[in-house]
């Protein structure tokens, strides 16, 4: 078991966003986390990667009210729920955030190098850079471009590439298809499969269920902060209630 | 007959709305105290301190109106004050207009100043705006110093007409003016215009999309704030009988901001209360003049560390609580809300 989340609970100002979530992920798996808008998918990823705890520390309960986090998150046999976000990254759990969030005023290369912040060996950085460029050849031709001026698809690739520079063992990707044209989405999903084949486990949050279910080995369906069910894509699609109620297909 | 109805209504309002809420009781008592004080204690020095406090309260409230409510962070509010002071001095000295005319006129000149600085500031936001507004009073200071023939240079213009003949007369005029203008500002912030100001601060783009001409409202905020600050400046000039470059100084702007934050931004009443607390306190430190500013800064720092949302707001939070269901205010000792009877839980 590479990642295990036990009874994760996140409360924003008395509103329960995540209600005792349990999920787990084996090494090398590609697991989907699907559900309707506002189900708590992104919050779950943010809680796992330590961003919620960071926000709690920074806002001190003054901006956006109180935040409570509860539960156990174990990654590679180590508890990470009390670790600061930047330490979690060094353990190999990397989040590629929603809406890709590139450092908009920096060049593509600087963005990628920012991803490699924790790696000290220059050779290793060069190696990883080559891997990313090989995966996303488009980025290579835009090395010196300011990333804010890239197109949406290129920004998404930059986001994933930047996350890869951090040498993840588990990569969490939050809604990679958001705001992208169908043809670009297909390309992004293809790349995600390719990354998975390199032995990096992936936890994928998506709304585009039809594509995701073709890729993933297992899926969790989340709604109103609770895990409704889990299982392989076929099993979920064969269950009429689940399919109609939560997947809308 | 109808008088009785009004009296009854007044009585009911007092009983139902005012006595119940400690903040309202304190406000009423404070106003009564201000009005009665000269009768009980006609001390000339005390009057002087309170008159200056009233002037600065007006000025600080006008800053809060512009920067707190409309979100147009103004670091150079002394501009309006200085423009008011200088223009009423010039009206009075050159055109021989008495204070009753020169003070309103100075308010109008400050409105003009508001329009002039509002125009370039319309396109700026946040810190850019804050750092730009700081420039305006300094530009004007330079002009004032460069034209000693008209403005008196570094010494300023002196020998203005007195506000009224007597200290008590001055006191009542200034205090009533302060109460009136702060009430107007407070009521404005509670009105529809106030809602639009709030919205400009929170999200201007959404407001524009909703079909509201934000430019107009931003200019309105600059003008109204300028009007009250200009009047404060005019009154100050006539009371001190001098209009000097110190009215335009950076430290005047900073002091106003300190008062407002001390009281709690975005409240109007907070600014007024803060000035009436801090200004007399500063006078106490006058005994040790070399430590005065040091004490002032230290107090502000300590207050900020422990009550970052402002001293007045901190006190209000202690004596009042808001029902989380119906949003009505209750005094802190109540167990259930006085409107919807929802119990206040303690977590």
């Amino acid at each position: 078991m590479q990642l295990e989340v036990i009874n994760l609970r996140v409360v924003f100002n008395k509103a329960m966003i995540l209600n005792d979530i349990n999920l787990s992920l084996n090494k090398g798996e590609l697991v989907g986390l699907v559900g309707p808008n506002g189900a708590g998918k992104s919050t779950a990823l943010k809680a796992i990667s330590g961003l919620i705890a960071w926000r709690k520390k920074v806002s001190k309960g003054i901006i956006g009210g109180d935040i409570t986090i509860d539960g156990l998150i174990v990654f590679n046999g180590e508890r990470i729920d009390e670790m600061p976000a930047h330490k979690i990254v060094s353990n190999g759990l990397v989040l590629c955030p929603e809406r890709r969030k590139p450092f908009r005023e920096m060049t593509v290369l600087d963005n990628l190098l920012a991803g490699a912040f924790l790696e000290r060996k220059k050779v290793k950085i060069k190696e990883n850079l080559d891997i990313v460029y090989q995966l996303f050849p488009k980025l290579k031709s835009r090395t010196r471009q300011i990333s804010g001026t890239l197109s949406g698809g290129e920004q998404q690739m930059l986001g994933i590439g930047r996350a890869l520079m951090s040498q993840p063992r588990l990569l969490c990707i939050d809604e990679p298809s958001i705001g992208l044209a169908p043809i670009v989405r297909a390309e992004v999903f293809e790349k995600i499969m390719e990354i998975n084949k390199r032995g990096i486990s992936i936890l994928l949050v998506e709304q585009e269920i039809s594509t995701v279910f073709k890729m993933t080995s297992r899926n969790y369906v989340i709604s109103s902060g609770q895990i409704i069910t889990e299982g392989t894509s076929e099993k979920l699609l064969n269950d009429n209630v689940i399919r109609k109620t939560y997947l809308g297909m | 007959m109808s008088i009785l109805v009004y009296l009854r209504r007044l009585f009911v309002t007092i009983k139902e709305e005012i006595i119940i809420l400690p903040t309202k009781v304190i406000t009423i008592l404070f106003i009564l105290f201000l009005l009665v004080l000269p009768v009980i204690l006609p001390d000339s020095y005390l009057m002087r301190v309170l008159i200056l406090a009233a002037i600065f309260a007006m000025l600080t409230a006008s800053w809060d109106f512009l920067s707190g409510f409309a979100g147009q962070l103004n670091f150079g509010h002394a501009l309006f004050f200085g423009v008011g002071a200088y223009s009423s001095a010039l009206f009075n000295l050159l055109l021989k207009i008495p204070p009753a005319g020169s003070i309103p006129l100075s308010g109008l000149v400050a409105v003009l100043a508001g329009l002039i600085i509002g125009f370039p500031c319309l396109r700026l936001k946040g810190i850019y705006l804050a750092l730009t507004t700081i420039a305006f009073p300094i530009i004007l200071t330079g002009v004032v110093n460069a034209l000693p023939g008209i403005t008196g240079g570094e010494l300023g213009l002196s020998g203005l007409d007195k506000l009224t003949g007597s200290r008590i007369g001055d006191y009542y005029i200034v205090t009533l003016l302060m109460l009136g203008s702060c009430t107007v500002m407070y009521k404005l912030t509670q009105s529809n215009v106030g809602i639009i100001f709030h919205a400009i601060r929170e999200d201007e783009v959404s407001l524009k999309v909703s079909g509201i001409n934000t430019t107009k409202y931003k200019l309105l905020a600059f003008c109204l704030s300028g009007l009250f600050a200009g009047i404060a400046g005019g009154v100050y000039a006539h009371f001190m009988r001098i209009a000097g470059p110190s009215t335009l100084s950076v430290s005047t702007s900073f002091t106003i901001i300190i008062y407002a934050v001390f009281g709690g931004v975005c409240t109007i009443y907070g600014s007024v209360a803060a000035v009436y607390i801090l200004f007399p306190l500063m006078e106490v430190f006058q005994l040790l003049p070399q430590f005065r500013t040091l004490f002032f800064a230290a107090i502000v720092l300590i207050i900020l560390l422990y009550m970052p949302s402002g001293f007045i707001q901190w006190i209000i939070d202690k004596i009042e609580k808001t029902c989380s269901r119906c949003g009505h205010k209750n005094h802190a000792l109540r167990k259930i809300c006085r409107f919807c009877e929802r119990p206040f839980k303690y977590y």
Partner: protein
Amino acid sequence: MVVDIIISTLINGSIYSILAIGFSLVFGVARIINIAHTAFYMLAAFCIYAGTNSFGLHPVLAMGAAIIFVTILGLASYKLIIEKIRVHPAATIIATIALAMIFQEIMILNFGAEFLSVPVLVEGFTVVFGVKITYQQVFTFIFMVILLISVWFLLMKTKLGLAIRATAQDRETANLMGMNESMIALVTIGISVGFAGFAGAIVIPLTVIHPHMWLSPLIIMMAVVVLGGLGSIKGSIIGAFIMGLTEAIIVFLLPMGSFLKGSVALTILIIVLIIKPEGLFGVSIEGE
């Protein structure tokens, strides 16, 4: 005349750019509008005065001590005061104003409100086109250029610089890259205050020291930051030299020049902003 203007521009411009870069770094990384920034510059000057006069230190030693002392003081005031109220932007501004006032008052209490001066480090002068240029001026300018280059190198070529730039743009995402955001904020503040102290230390032999000497550079520094575009280092440097040049021209050419220098410089700032609200080199990227 022309040489005078050039010298004055170069020296003032380089001081303003060092101050402006430090100020905008702290704003970028920690979102703190540090009004006390130039107060640290003033403190460094007083430290050197005290070091050389009261303790009899060698000027160079005093300079080093002053820079270290000011940096530590800056870090301490961040840790003890600013960090606790950083969530409230308004309170942070007031706190830095209050800090600046406290420093100013303590200096008045200790040294009085008189004008003081310290001896120059390098004696002697040379004459260029009939204008006297002291070696101290040349020395100051060279040091400032070295400092500017090292700032640029630090930000653009080192890992720390990359982290600072990344944090300045998006604190949350910087965390996801493994950057310790609060540590980087602390380091940035140290660097920024250290540079302010350095600028103060280098420049005081050319000027007079008094407790209010932080106000006018503060205003010009803020103008430079806005003029060049917040967060743009190139913008800060060019903006600083524009401001320095304007000031120099006004002082040397207009009769009431020294009164008007700030006014004209700031008027230029406002004109630029009316035309280009994000400053000369600010990147206008719509937020999400």
